[in-house]
């Protein structure tokens, strides 16, 4: 059986203008316990790749430039 794509809206949002992942920063990716963040090959900025969020906030708290915002996942909101 082939796999389908099921879209979901992800809770973690990154402000590309503030993100300095393209300068070598990996703080948010490192601190995520669920390991759901990645640096985009296209933009060089961090983004949420997997919708597996505990809305726990280290990514937002530890981001040195305040680029990350953690929202509550839609199903819980």
């Amino acid at each position, binding site marked *: *059986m*082939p*796999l389908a794509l099921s879209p979901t809206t992800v809770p973690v949002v990154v402000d590309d203008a503030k993100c300095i992942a393209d300068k070598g920063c990996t703080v948010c990716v*490192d*601190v*995520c*316990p*669920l*390991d759901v963040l*990645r640096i985009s090959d296209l933009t060089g900025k961090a983004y949420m790749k*997997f919708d*597996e*969020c*505990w*809305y*726990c*906030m*280290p990514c937002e*708290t*530890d981001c040195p430039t305040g680029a990350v915002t*953690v*929202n*509550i*996942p839609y*199903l*819980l*909101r």
Partner: protein
Amino acid sequence: MDNFVEGLTEVTCDVLVIGGGTAGPMAALKAKQKNPALNVVLLEKANVKRSGAISMGMDGLNNAVVPGYATPEQYTKEITIANDGIVDQAPVYKYASRCYEIIEELDRFGIRFQKNANGDFDLKKVHHLGTYVLPMPNGDTVKKALYRQLKRERILISNRFMATRLLTAREGRIAGAVAVNTRSAEFLVLRAKTVILCMGAAGRLGLPHSGYLFGTYENPTNSGDGYAMAYHAGAALANLECYQINPLIKDYNGPACAYVAGPFGAYTANSEGKRFIESDYWSGQMMQEFYNELQSGKGPVFLKLNHLHPDTVGEIEEILHKVERPSRGRFHEARGTDYREKMIEMHISEIGFCSGHSASGVFVDEFARTTVPGLYAAGDMASVPHNYMLGAFTNGAVAGEHAAEVAQEIDLPDYDPDFVRLERVRVLAPTRREDGIPPNQLEYKARRLVNDYLQPPKVTAKMQIGQARLADVREDFETALVVRNAHELMRALEVSSILDCADMAAHASLYRTESRWGLYHHRVDYPDKDDDNWFCHTLLSKVDGRMTSEKRAIQPYVVPIETEERSAYDRLRVLNQA
């Protein structure tokens, strides 16, 4: 990142600590301090910097036994009563005797506990008998401070490696572990003289009411991997039928933090705004009362703060929205709920195993030793009841010290290379398939079945159906699971732990044919407590490849409990069932 890489490395150490959350870093530190010549490795599935249950810190200690406020005897007594007497007191007493020294050490690490104007620890009285609550209004820096200590002590840290199975030597002694990288699927064989499991609760067992797989009460990385690994290595697990179920903020699924708000005058109320909890102790009995009220005409249940002065509420929010689960302020904001105006709806959590809050864990003695020689366990996954964060730190320290002592006396045990070969085949099987069922679907189904068939009130026939349905899911796991990258492989391996824990939950629950610990083990078809046959622990283990349960006598109490005190639990129980 996330693409499969063929790789295998073998490393050797003296003490291997698996899990870098709370107990793990302390175990590693203490092992190294005990003997700085030892090679100590700390293995972590995420990154030690922010992993585990206290990723964003903790808002306070619930069980601080501080001289002048409570005694180890008093504490041991209360824990015994709260667990309906089913307690080996030696590890509890050991914890109670040592935890103050650990608080002082954490204070030196820079972890901030609340102090009064004179700079002394500011304990809050919540219970009648002893005073155990020490707030941590700035407790968000716990992990940072621990990480700094680990670096200073030159502990070898291996992040993003998920342990899958323990290695044992021929005579059954522990020999190390096998792990897989969560971003490349490379294999790591860690040989060790002693191994300490600090892998947290089985908190991803039941499905939260929201249906969101990761919206669990516990950090969802705590998927019961330690329970599963200990089981497969032959260790005994104690009282797994004594589930963890906690009161929480509905949908947000975070703790209501009665321990934070309680001393300020907040409480749990029914829809009439009235208190209803009779139980004196945080226990399954308390949860049963909570459950009953939820189901009653006076339900649901709420956290009530709207009678407090707005300044007081502000002070509480300052703590709750910064520490432990800080996104809850955002949750309330989006809902338009304000503690000052309305009561906040509460609910009960999905089921799990967690000795931090209840009593279900890998069986350990007062040295944190499991029943497998050389294997230790500490924190939420070890059987010391109600030990919370401070218990994880303290028992982690106990484990680290003892494991270091043993490691310096023995040679590195051999392991069976064939076991590693077969483990690679098992782990990588879903990477070899082109097509099949992805781990998220398998997980949803398994956990939905846990809710439908295993959560209390427990019914024999339902649990048996659950076992059969879960066996089907396991077969799908073994024959049809497909993963496309290393990240999905990690999730798949977590599902394997979830399935193991679900089987253990059903097996242990069916074995104890009585009701005990309030809601935690409420068996509808065995509604009464049966002290004559069941005033004992149950131990579950793998014998000749099969899941087996047996009774184990409770060790003679270190701190005697008067009959009248013991019946305190029952008295409350009778009152509420009226």
